[in-house]
């Protein structure tokens, strides 16, 4: 484990010079982003330092309760992010609840599966493995669920006449909403498919790079990365399918009517 090179604060400070160069460029070219750039850099440092402290504590505790609480908090943040990205949200609790519930179900299921079958730490809930795995799966799941729900609601509004045309002719809500459902699921899964296809050729994933920098042999790091990609694909697919089908269920009713009145108005840009 001691094969990695520990960084000193002086080395970090030296690397931060590049942020100041960016800020300088912003001033020279009157881009007016130097302020935002510096604030973002400071936020990044503070947030990561805090996360480091939290993770250090979590890893030393190895408590199922605290690991569970941390995982739950991560899911709630992800649910909030996914809801924020919706142009038109489901009214009431559904907006937050549907995405969060589906992400929790799928990402926890996939993470626990990986912990029990592939990674097998002792104990199985060891936060050193559970929290980073959940984080990677959740991050991608959030993008998929957010995209899927956004495409669903936007398409149902834009293509209301075509969905209702099928309903008017006696189609069930599942049949009438099928074209829009398919479109929403495709857009939810597209980023995962694209990233799997491009991995290794166009981009070296951060997790794998991190492991290699940490001294893990590349062949081992690659195996971990393949595992994580499969988990991400599974978690995103499961989360997006349940969220989109849940959205279809909520935006139609038992009388097979389209219920766009259960959406909030378009968010001001």
């Amino acid at each position, binding site marked *: 484990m001691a094969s990695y090179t520990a960084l000193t604060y002086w080395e970090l400070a030296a690397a931060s010079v590049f942020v100041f160069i960016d800020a300088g460029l912003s001033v020279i070219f009157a881009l007016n982003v130097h302020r935002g750039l510096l604030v973002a850099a400071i936020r990044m440092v503070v947030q990561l330092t805090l996360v480091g402290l939290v993770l250090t504590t979590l890893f030393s505790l190895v408590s199922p309760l605290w690991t569970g609480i941390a995982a739950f908090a991560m899911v709630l943040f992800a649910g909030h992010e996914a809801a924020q990205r919706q142009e038109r949200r489901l009214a009431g609790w559904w907006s937050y609840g549907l995405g969060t519930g589906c992400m929790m179900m799928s990402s926890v299921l996939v993470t626990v599966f990986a912990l029990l079958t592939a990674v097998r730490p002792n104990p199985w809930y060891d936060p050193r493995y559970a929290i980073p795995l959940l984080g990677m799966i959740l991050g991608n799941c959030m993008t998929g669920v957010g995209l899927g729900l956004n495409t669903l609601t936007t398409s149902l509004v834009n*293509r*209301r*006449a*075509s*969905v*209702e*045309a*099928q*309903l*008017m*002719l*006696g*189609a*069930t*809500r599942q049949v009438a909403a099928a*074209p829009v459902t398919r479109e929403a699921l495709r857009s939810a899964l597209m980023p995962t498919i694209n990233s799997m296809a491009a991995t290794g050729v166009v981009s070296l994933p951060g997790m794998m790079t991190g492991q290699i920098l940490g001294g893990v042999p590349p062949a081992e790091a690659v195996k971990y990365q393949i595992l994580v990609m499969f988990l991400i694909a599974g978690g995103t697919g499961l989360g997006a399918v349940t969220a989109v089908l849940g959205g279809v269920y909520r935006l139609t*009713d*038992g*009388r*097979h*009517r*389209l*219920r766009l*009145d259960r959406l909030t108005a378009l968010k001001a840009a």
Partner: protein
Amino acid sequence: MYSGLKEMAVDAAATMEANEPVLTTCHAGAPILQVRDLRTKLLKPASLSLSAGECIAIRGPSGAGKTLLLRAIADLDPNEGVVCLDGRDRSTLAGPEWRRLVGYVPAEPGWWGDTVGEHFSEWTGALALVRDLGFPKDAKAWPISRLSTGERLRLALIRALMVGPKVLLLDEPTAALDPASVAAVESLIAARVRAGLAVLWVTHDAEQAKRIAHRLLVVRDGQVREEVPEWLVTQP
């Protein structure tokens, strides 16, 4: 004063009891479509009855609620009230089943496929209607994006008739048509009405109402009333 209040409460209860059976029963028999106190958030309680082989024209200013009335009867928007077809309460039928019996053709019909044929479960069966409304046989392959508004309205009408409804709700089906097509649509519907189809026909055209309808309903500010049209009054 105290006893007065008490009496009022008793009266209210009695009235509610008296009204209840009237609101919940469906009578089998002459009018094929019975609508009682049908209301939505925007539509005031509407009642009407429509017999088999009858056509009722619905008129009224734009935005008065004509489309809302048709959508509520087709059960496309949340609504309350009693709607019966052939003595059967609408709530005993599933939504899709109801809409196959009570067809609705909106003023701006929707399309889910790219070509005309994709919107028909069976094109050969529709050919007679297709020809009657002035389309060639190969219209099946026409792309939807190249259809004119008038062509879309006529194809939507054929599509709805192919389902075989007992009641047809038409929302300005001839608004964008040339005179020849208007005549073709009117005579086609008239033939269906003679064969027993019941039709509610929203139209802005008083002359058309006179040509096609037996009765007249007027919708104003979300309120539906039956009016006796001049063309019936002047008849002996």
